Each structure stands twice: as structure tokens, then as C-alpha cells.
């Protein structure tokens, strides 16, 4: 059984490689946390539901003009023609509005899902989509816990639509179109850290006005968009059962096992093959 030593060495290499890779990956996660991601704070107590942001968003992104208020019935979702919508909710504290768009997660599930890196978390914070890379598999849509990426089902050259936090504007030093135009200062743009301390300040200054929770601080591992609300967030149609860990962390265990399987399994198979090679009884063994 000369294979034993070789097998042993392979195990050793595999363990070493796995440890090394594991450590690398951990280090990488840490460094992304150090980056100052930009985000937006949305304060539902200030939003008057004018839907001006919908018009500004459509204009900034070359999308069709949103419908007038009288044509709107029920709750709307973002789709391939609109990257943001403001919905009206009847809550325990009366009518409250909520703006929906991409949350720009710190560790986005869509970007981890993307096999071509078409979905990409930029260093500034926005999650963007690159049509030259995307193959239209829609795995980002399967993975996103907020159901944000939208697909053009009726096009031969379909694109994925979602809010980009106006990344092109951010690069030229401007702020997102919706934030820029909001007449009620319901939206505020800044680094995530600034926004979190601003949100905490508002809650502590007016504890009766807000629920004591910043939606997006921990949800899905933390998001770029943060929400303040006068009512519990499930009354506004936001999922309150999302996990606190990032969604990509769900596949990490599986992906980390890949290098070890690749080294261990072939060694094991070769070992078994050598061990059973000259066993004449095998031919009839299974007949009983």
C-alpha cells in the first residue's frame, strides 16, 4: 500500500490549502467592511408621498414617465420600467408612505450570485449592472432577498433593471437624483456611518415619533439604504424576518468545501482503485 504515504501528503496539502484559502477569504471580507460605503437614509415620518422621486428617477435613468396618482390602485412594485416606487400604507398611526428601491446591501446576494460579475458592488457602495457581462441567467433575481433585480421578459436583448443609486451621478460628485429633488428632506445621502449616527440622533431626539429600529442596519448583513419609520416595519411591507448575516454567507460553507473536495476525493478514489484492483472475488461478490 504505497498509496498511503502519497494520500497522506495530499491530505496535508489539502488541509494547508484550505486553511490558507479560508484565511484569505476572511481577510477579504474584513477589508470590504472597512470601506466607507455611501448610502441613503429614508425617513418615513418626513415623506409626504408626493412621488416626485419617481419622476426624478425616471428622468435620470431614461425610463418612461410614472403614471399620475389617479391611475394608481393598490401597492406597486418596481419593474423593468421603474427603479423606484412610493407606496401608501394604512398603518396603526394612519397613512405612512414607503419608498422602495434597491437596498444596495453591504454584501449583496445578487453580486455573489453573479457568475460573470455583471452585478457588482462598487467601492463607493452602489450595486451596479453591466450588460456586456450579464448572460441573463436571472440567478441574481432568485437570490435577492428584496426581489429587486427586474428582467425584460419581452425583449430579444433583455436587460436587468434596478436602482443604481445614480452611480454615474455619484462619480461626478453629484448626489442621487431622488435625494437631490426630495422637497421634504425625507432622503439624505452620505456615508453609511454618518447616516447611522444621524438616524440614531433622530430616534433619541424624538423617541415618540419613531420605532426604535433602523431598518437596514443589520438586515441582510447591513444595507446601503436605511429606513426610519413611525410604525413597525412589517406594517410597511418590509420583511422583518430577514437574517442578520449577509446572504452570501449562506453559500460560503459550500464554496469553501470545493478546494478540499478537489484534492481529497481524487486521492481517495485512486487509493480505493488501487486497493480493489487485484481482487478477483469482486466479480461475483454482488451475486447473492
Amino acid at each position, binding site marked *: 500500500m504505497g498509496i498511503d504515504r502519497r494520500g497522506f501528503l495530499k491530505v496535508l496539502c489539502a488541509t494547508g490549502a484550505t486553511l490558507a484559502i479560508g484565511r484569505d477569504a476572511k481577510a477579504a471580507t474584513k477589508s470590504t467592511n472597512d470601506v466607507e460605503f455611501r448610502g441613503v437614509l429614508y425617513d418615513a415620518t418626513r415623506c409626504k408621498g408626493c412621488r416626485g422621486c419617481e419622476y426624478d428617477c425616471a428622468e435620470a435613468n431614461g425610463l418612461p414617465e410614472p403614471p399620475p396618482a389617479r391611475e394608481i390602485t393598490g401597492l406597486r412594485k418596481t419593474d423593468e420600467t421603474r427603479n423606484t416606487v412610493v407606496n401608501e400604507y394604512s398603518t396603526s398611526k394612519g397613512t405612512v408612505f414607503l419608498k422602495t428601491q434597491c437596498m444596495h446591501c453591504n454584501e449583496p*446576494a445578487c453580486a455573489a450570485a453573479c457568475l460573470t460579475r455583471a452585478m457588482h458592488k462598487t467601492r463607493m457602495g452602489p450595486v451596479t449592472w453591466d450588460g456586456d457581462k450579464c448572460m441573463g441567467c436571472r440567478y441574481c433575481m432568485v437570490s435577492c432577498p428584496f426581489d429587486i433585480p427586474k428582467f425584460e421578459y419581452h425583449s430579444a436583448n433583455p436587460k436587468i433593471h434596478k436602482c443604481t443609486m445614480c452611480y454615474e451621478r455619484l462619480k461626478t460628485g453629484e448626489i442621487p437624483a431622488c435625494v437631490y429633488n426630495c422637497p421634504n428632506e425625507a432622503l439624505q445621502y452620505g456615508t453609511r456611518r454618518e447616516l447611522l449616527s444621524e438616524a440614531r440622533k433622530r430616534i433619541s431626539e424624538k423617541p415618540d415619533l419613531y420605532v426604535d429600529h433602523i431598518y437596514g442596519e443589520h438586515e441582510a448583513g447591513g444595507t446601503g439604504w436605511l429606513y426610519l419609520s413611525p410604525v413597525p416595519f412589517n406594517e410597511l411591507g418590509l420583511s422583518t424576518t430577514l437574517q442578520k448575516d449577509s446572504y452570501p454567507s449562506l453559500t460560503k460553507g459550500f464554496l469553501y468545501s470545493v478546494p478540499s473536495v478537489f484534492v481529497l476525493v481524487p486521492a481517495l478514489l485512486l487509493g480505493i*482503485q488501487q486497493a480493489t484492483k487485484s481482487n478477483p472475488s469482486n466479480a461475483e461478490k454482488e*451475486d447473492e
Partner: protein
Amino acid sequence: MNNELAIGRFLLSELKPKGKILTPFNVITFPIMILGLALIAIRFYKGIGSVTNLSQEIPWGLWIGFDVVTGVAFAGGAYVITFMVYILNMKKYHSIVRVTVLNGFLAYVFYAGALLLDLGRPWNVINPIIGNSFGFNSVLFLVAWHFLLYMIAQLIEFSPAIAEWLGARRIRKILSGMTLAAVIFGITLSTLHQSGLGALYLMAKDKIHPLWYSQFIPVMFLVSSIFAGLSMVIFEGSISHRVFFSKISEKNHLAQRGILLGLSKICAGTMFAYFFLQLLVFLHGKHWALLNTPMGYWYLLEMVGFVLVPMFLFYRSYRRGQIGMIRVAAILTMLGVILNRLNVTVIGFRWDMAVRYVPSWMEVVVTLTVLFAEIWIFRWVINRMPVLSDPPAWATDQK
């Protein structure tokens, strides 16, 4: 020069159909395939939404859930049988290696093909392959690469049969020397992408019914691919032994009984392990209350009717030597695997939505087209290459 001409003429003659053309199978499948091709043309011209019922909330339907996820599970027979024959040296199963590998190879070719139909921007499909942009941390990246590499490994495993068909003696010798390496590589790839297909759904944590979602989906998919693949081998073998009766030697006809009994035993064993794993996951998940809901009954039907019952049937028919019941058990198992894969990918996916996804008739026709096209090619190969029939004498001498 003469030699090349002869090969050309040989290939041309082999392209012609052999046997009757107006068989019931042909008469039924041909119009469906023509219709399917027309639908595929519409899909590329007017977009995926023109033929499918997919929506923004349910981006993956029948084409992924059945064609790819279920199809690949059934193709698992190839890695299990090559493991038994080349790694465990269980010579008894040698006569079914080629047909199983061919089946697996064609399954991958056609299901990867079906994947292309589902891609919105298929012209970018080479991006993750040519290194334009590697999404290393994507499970789908892993699965895509594994599909590609595994198809190559299976082609190498099968290639001696092609060489025998063409009468290429020296090439056959080289190719058959590569078999063991291809088998080891292929099994490794299979363990990872069979489980990887399950791992694809790990991030859809809040979208899949809790009775089917757990962090162990990859393990479940891997273990169930063993008996899914072997049931397919039993099912396909039972049909092939009738349809291609004259191709199979007397000796292999007689060996079939022993093979089926052996596979039956393995199926019963792995299904027991699988059921036990499912039970552990269920107990760990503390979902007792969910059992008394419609989805809970559906879950129980899958676990009892399509895992426990066929497991018991496999075991009993193995003990009593009842070949007929083994076939029944194999069919039940296959239905169970279809049910399980669809429960994770389609039925349990967004089970709480008001408007449920039901595949359009066009999605079903395209799926059937893929399936029938595979069977047509399978038949074409079986009728020409030494797959079920014994290899030519010179090839046997070469070993």
C-alpha cells in the same frame, strides 16, 4: 487519400436512418419537436416572456427546475456506475458502463443546451469561461464550469466506443488509456456539481418553503442523485433490453438480472441513508406545526410515498428476486426525485404567492422537444456504435 474517401462514405451512410421510419415513437415525437423548434425561434425573436409564464418574482421555472436540476440528477447514474466499475472494480456492472455514460453525456449536452434557452443574453455565455470576468464566489460559476468539464470527462470515457465504430485502432488505445483519469476527475466533478445544483438555492432562504429549505440542500441533492441516477439506469436498461434486443449478447441478457438485483440493493441502501438525513433535518428544523398544512401533506406524500415506499419495494424485490417490482420501484423513485426537485425549485419556491407559477404549454412542449431530441440521438448512437452490443474483436484483444 482512398482511406479518407472511404471514411467519408462510411460516415455518410451512417447518417441515414436505420430501421423503420414510421414507428409510433417517431410519429408522436416528430411533430412535437417541430413545434418545439418553432417555439424556440419565437423565444429568441420575442423574448423569454413570449413563451414562458415566468415573472419578476419567479425567474426560474420548468426549464431550470425540470430540464436542468432534475435532468442532471437522473444523469447521476454515470458517476455512480463508473465509480462501481472502475474504482471499486465491480466487474459485474461492466456491460452497462457504456450505455450509462452515453446517457449521462447526452443528458448533460441537452440539459446544458436547455440552459441556453433560458439565458436572456446567451451570447455572453462564454464570459465566465474565457476569463472575461470570473465570478469566483458564485455557486453558478462553479456549476457552469463543472458542467463543461464533466461533459469533456464523459466524452473521454465514452470515446473508445466512437473509435471502435470508426475502426481507429491506435486512437482507441490512447483514449482507453485515459479512462481512469477521466473517471476520477468525473466523479469528483459530479460530487461537487450535484450538490452545487442544490447550493444554488441556498441564498433563496426566504423564498423556499421551510420544509424543503435547509442548509443541507446540497447534501440532499448529492445523496439523492445516487438513487436517482441508478433508478434511471434500471428504467433505461429495462427499455433498452426490449427495444434494442438484438444488439445485446446472450451473455449480457443473462447478466441483466444480477445487475438489476445489485442496483436494487444499492438503491435501497442509499434511500435509507437519504430518508434518515431528511428525518434529521426535519427534526432539527422543528417544523412539526407545518406538517398539518397542505404543503405539509405534500411533503409527507413525497417522503412516504416516493422515498419510503420505493425503498421498501427495492429491498423486498431484492430479497425475493422480483425483477418486475424493481422496475416499479425505479419508476416510483424517479417520480419522487422529480417531485423533490420541483418542490425545491418550482412548487415550494414562493409557495406563499397569491399568483402561483404554472408552466405554460409552450414551456412543456420545449421541454419535451429537448427530451425527445436526446432520445433520438441516443438511438442513433446505439444503432451504430458498440454501446449495448459487444465491442469488435480487435478492441477486446487490445486490452
